[in-house]
């Protein structure tokens, strides 16, 4: 989760799976990261964690502009999680 959020918001330091979130929301957040896998395999033939910083950005940018609304929504959700769990 942190790998994805650090690619989305460089310098991210926080606790994305905050304990105050209900368990099912934490599970959904954890599972949502799997969405990045098919995009990274399709675009760069490697899992997300093995991509360079610029390749990770390309993957997330493609997801943010996906024709699939749920994928765009997930990126927006990650962004909200990233800012609310790290920025004051």
């Amino acid at each position, binding site marked *: 989760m942190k790998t994805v959020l650090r690619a989305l918001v460089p310098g991210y330091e926080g606790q994305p799976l905050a304990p105050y979130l209900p368990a099912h929301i934490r599970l959904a957040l954890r599972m949502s990261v799997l969405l990045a896998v098919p995009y990274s395999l399709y675009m760069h033939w490697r899992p997300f964690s093995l991509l360079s910083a610029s390749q990770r950005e390309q993957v997330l940018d493609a997801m*943010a502009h996906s024709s699939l*609304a749920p994928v*765009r929504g997930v990126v927006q959700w990650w962004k909200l999680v990233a800012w*609310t769990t790290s920025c004051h």
Partner: protein
Amino acid sequence: MVEARGLDHVVPLINGSTVPVDDTADFVVVGSGAGGGTVARWLAEAGHDVIIVEEGAPPRAAANTADAVATLYRDGGAQAAFGMDVLPLLQGCAVGGTTVINGAIQVPFPEAVYREWVAADPAWGSLLPWRQLEQARERVDAALNIHATPRDLWGGNGSAMRRALGSEAHPTRRNVRGCKGSARCMIGCPNGAKQSTDVAMIPAAMSHGARVYAQCAVQKITVIGRRARGVSARFSSGATGTFHARRAVILAAGAVHSPWLLLRSGVRVGAGFTCHPGAAMAGLFPDAIHNRPEASQSMESLAYLAEGIKFESLLMPSALQKARVPGVGEQLTRRVAQLDRVALWGVAARAQARGRVMRGPFGPMVLYTPTVADRRILLKGLARLAVAMFDAGAVEVWPSVHGAPDVIRSREQAMRIADLPPGAGAIPMVATHLFGGVPVRERFQVPGVDGLVLADASLFPTNLGVNPMSAITAVATVVAEAWA
């Protein structure tokens, strides 16, 4: 009995319990927000014995946005309606309910909407007479110190909206006392200036003997022989709470949880859910605009209500503001660095779609999808806002609408937003104004159960098209008068 420190005041209440609690009063009020806090105050002041049961804790000054979201928002801000769009439903979960985290905007109950209600069901005319509703609003306006935002709190954001929309925009009327323009309404006022119900209503109720049980989630309404007798609840510690009502149980847990509690208690409702979805438009200005005190939402426009459109300026804590910035990675970082030059304005649509509140595996589940017509209204509103941003001097507009460029730089591009395909998921929406559509009969009782009363937006049959706090407090006042 413990003392729990609020934002700038001390409220004696029972904040959680580790031992079972059993208590009896004339009225058991479920929820302490706009509806519950108001009805509790007026009933207590009329001499009745009142218990307030609230799932959340007393609000405290949040250290940062994450802390505020964790302690003040339901489900840590992650509650959503599901359908073709995933629609976040932002509600408060604290003593004071959503009034703790709203933008403090007070718009009187629109008379045109009231006329619609009466035309659709003439019983509203006698249940909720317009004259009584107006008198109730005046009573609440005085209690909440509602007045127009002064010019020194318009800030750069609100002033830019005023400049662009001219006489179509006006300063918001807000429930504040001594607002310092810290723009933190949505994470709990750090100065105790916002007259949320935990500040303006509940302490007054308590001074007349009302008892508040906080961190106590109601599980079920006890109905015996077609009459509501009380509620069973559970404290966050796991201890049980049993509250008996001599006269009535007043449900004011909001447009999601009130229908859900009715469903759990065997009353078949939930099909009338609707909401007032909104979207935001960001604009980059050549110079810093956030350089002075500013109210969170200082300016609004009601000029297009007939078209189902409402505009308002938005100044949120930076973490929430940043989430609206387009882009990822380094590009996002570069744009976020310009945040002091970014104005954020919102549009809300009087959506006609109907959804449903259901019993889900983790609590209430809301199914709701805005119609194509609802999305068209939002796109039309966003296009107008984008044009207005350029009129106010913006050099770029960041629409965040699927199908539009991330950045647009001309009025012509801005106008084309209205013609984008209104497909599902095209517009990132959020809803904070929720309505339940639960039918009520005389004295606002739920059909089929005597002494089970609604006093929140769950009884509103339609979307108001405006911020509902003023309407909810006015209706709750009429409910209290019906039972006083």
